[in-house]
């Protein structure tokens, strides 16, 4: 096919190298001691050590950070998908007052530069007693993930013929049955893509997560900042922690990869 031209394949190959090299470097850092990292340049670690990984695996603070992060990411994904599904459905099926303006408005919420909004966020969630809970972070991240989820799901659902709705109605199914048993399975791939995007935004976000948590719900990205201290920078542990933070993401992508292609392909294009 004419699509995969030689040029673009070369660019892709080059880009892959470009992507991999920093990741490789991260991995080698994780396998070296701090003195080693700051002291010498070497392509392959000559004194590889697993001490950095051991530190992370044995210190409960790190472990707890992972648990906290995963719990708010999952919560966020759950909330985003479950509120976005009905919204996307009505967007794809009905015309209503202000529908055209709504999506742009949803997106504009992402335009707020986070720095100043941190204090209102903090106060908002403290005032309802959610400060330092995963739910607070999950809800705050909804600001970013919900508009995107609606957009992805709506695109996909618009591609599903309305005849399916009518057919279910004629067959005498309740709306609830139709939606959960017929409509959602059709949109499986889109949900996969949505999950990926929710995961992506929620997992990597630092500022809100930091502001909305104290010690109970402290996420992994915040735990990572402790590697910078008055007695130096703990490169090795930071790198090892980074390697760990990449892993869940890779797992998610691997599991939804089929949906990613399909969901993307049939979705909003």
């Amino acid at each position, binding site marked *: 096919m004419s699509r995969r031209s030689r040029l673009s394949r070369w660019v892709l190959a080059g880009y892959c190298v470009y992507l991999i090299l920093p990741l490789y470097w991260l991995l080698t850092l994780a396998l070296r001691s701090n003195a080693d990292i700051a002291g010498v340049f070497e392509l392959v670690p000559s004194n590889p050590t697993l001490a950095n990984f051991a530190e992370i695996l044995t210190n409960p603070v790190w472990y707890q950070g992972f648990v906290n992060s995963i719990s708010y990411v999952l919560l966020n994904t759950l909330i985003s998908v479950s509120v976005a599904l009905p919204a996307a459905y009505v967007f794809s099926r009905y015309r209503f*007052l*202000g529908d055209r*303006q709504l999506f742009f408005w949803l997106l504009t919420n992402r335009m707020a530069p986070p720095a100043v909004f941190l204090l*209102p966020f903090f*106060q908002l969630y403290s*005032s309802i007693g959610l400060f330092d809970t995963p739910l607070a972070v999950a809800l705050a991240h909804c600001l970013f993930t919900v508009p995107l989820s609606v957009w992805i799901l709506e695109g996909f659902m618009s591609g599903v013929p309305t005849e399916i709705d009518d057919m279910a109605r004629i067959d005498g199914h309740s709306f609830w049955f139709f939606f959960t048993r017929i409509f959602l399975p059709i949109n499986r791939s889109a949900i996969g893509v949505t999950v990926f995007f929710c995961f992506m935004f929620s997992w990597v976000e630092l500022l809100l997560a930091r502001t909305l948590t104290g010690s109970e719900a402290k996420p992994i990205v915040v735990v990572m900042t402790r590697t910078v201290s008055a007695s130096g920078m703990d490169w090795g542990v930071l790198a090892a922690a980074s390697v760990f933070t990449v892993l869940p993401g890779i797992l998610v992508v691997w599991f939804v990869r089929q949906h990613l292609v399909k969901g993307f392909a049939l979705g909003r294009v």
Partner: protein
Amino acid sequence: MTWMAWTLPTAIFFAVIAVALSVLIVLELERPTSMSRGWLPMATTRGDRFFISLLGAAFIHLLWLGLTPWSAMYASGLAIIWSGVIMAKG
């Protein structure tokens, strides 16, 4: 809600916008608009024009504050004229 740091002027400002939005909704339900074309380079609905006039008013204020040393009241006056023009003719 003391933490929201309300002041009277901002409260009035938001109240005005809220009222305007409600009026727009009611109008829309009573007399729905369709896309129409004024001297703006695209077809707009009443809601679109409302948004454009607000955004325009904001930038009139910004320009005024950035470029002139005079009171922002003049800018507000300009902004009201601008909004009127857009809502009516946009």
